[in-house]
């Protein structure tokens, strides 16, 4: 199960600064570790995280090895209008997850 969680306030005042917190279940295997037999464990990480607020990209991260497993990405934005906040994670081995949260702005 490629689970991810997006947490935003259900409602906010227009112009208010809101925090968006996201968690994605991922092992973030660095590609530098070896098995007990000395074989390299292939890299398997999330490469990119994008957050889209009502169709406009508001936040983007490129991830590299040495980011911990199950990365927690939290950031802020200004609540401008009601709508959807969509988060996308993409990574090695075809990993791709999209999670959406709704926000009501008054």
């Amino acid at each position, binding site marked *: *199960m490629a*689970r991810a*969680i997006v*947490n935003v306030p259900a409602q906010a005042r227009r112009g208010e600064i809101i925090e968006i*917190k996201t*968690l994605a*279940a991922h*092992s*973030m295997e660095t590609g530098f570790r070896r098995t007990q037999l000395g074989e390299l464990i292939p890299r398997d990480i999330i490469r990119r995280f994008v957050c889209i607020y009502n169709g406009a990209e508001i936040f983007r991260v490129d991830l590299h090895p040495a980011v*911990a*497993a*199950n990365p*927690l990405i*939290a950031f802020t934005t200004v609540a401008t209008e009601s709508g959807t906040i969509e988060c996308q994670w993409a990574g090695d081995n075809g990993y791709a997850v999209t999670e959406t949260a709704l926000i009501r702005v008054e």
Partner: protein
Amino acid sequence: MSVRIGVRPCLALAAACILLEFAKAGAAAEIPLAERRSGYDLMGRETRAMQDDDATNPGTLWVLDGEALWNAKAGSAGRACSSCHGDARASMKGVAARYPAFDAARRRPVNLEERINFCRADRQKAPPLAFEGKDLLALSAYVARQSRGLPSEIAIDERTKPFLDAGRETFYRRQGQLNLACTQCHNDNWGKKLAGSIIPQAHPTGYPLYRLEWQGLGSLQRRLRNCFVGMRAEPYAYGAPEFVDLELYLMWRARGMKLETPAVRP
């Protein structure tokens, strides 16, 4: 011959003295109920904040997986956990706070993970889930999550007393190449540091928990195995009755303390 007769009572006396000293030390070492503290109180502000907020607590990922498993049919009986138990938020409330609990059919205490697997075998006709596998961790985290904030209440009666005593004996027994007992760190020296880490009192109220060192969720038995390896002792296998006895003793020792599942620890 006379020498051997002379030596034996001496040895016996010495052994008895040592045992007496140990018993006294053991009795004195137990932490008074009011001075018990969760490992939560000993960790940093950031890690506490991480645990407190479901949006940042990575254990939430497992809890949500557990909820999906709870409602998914498994085994040849075609039943889900919810088919019998209904909504876990009501039916499982306070259950984890009573585990390990005595199982009358097996005539011994069983822990939450074992109970889940027995339920799978008996009611769902499904193969057992592997210890420390993602599914068993998720299900036990989901069940134990329903007891968060409730006090641990281990009932000790004449049936469970021998197992509690066996667990206590393990806790106070020196073992491994370092010749250490659990009590020497967790009763006598809690709050001090072992290398860079603060030694906690070893209250198992947050399991299964997310350990940053593990980069994942793990059971109490995984933590106990860590401690055994640290003492250079050979750990028991997952699901060993000795481990369940020790779990029983630790949960009894933490009686009245609030469950934190899924906790976060450094």
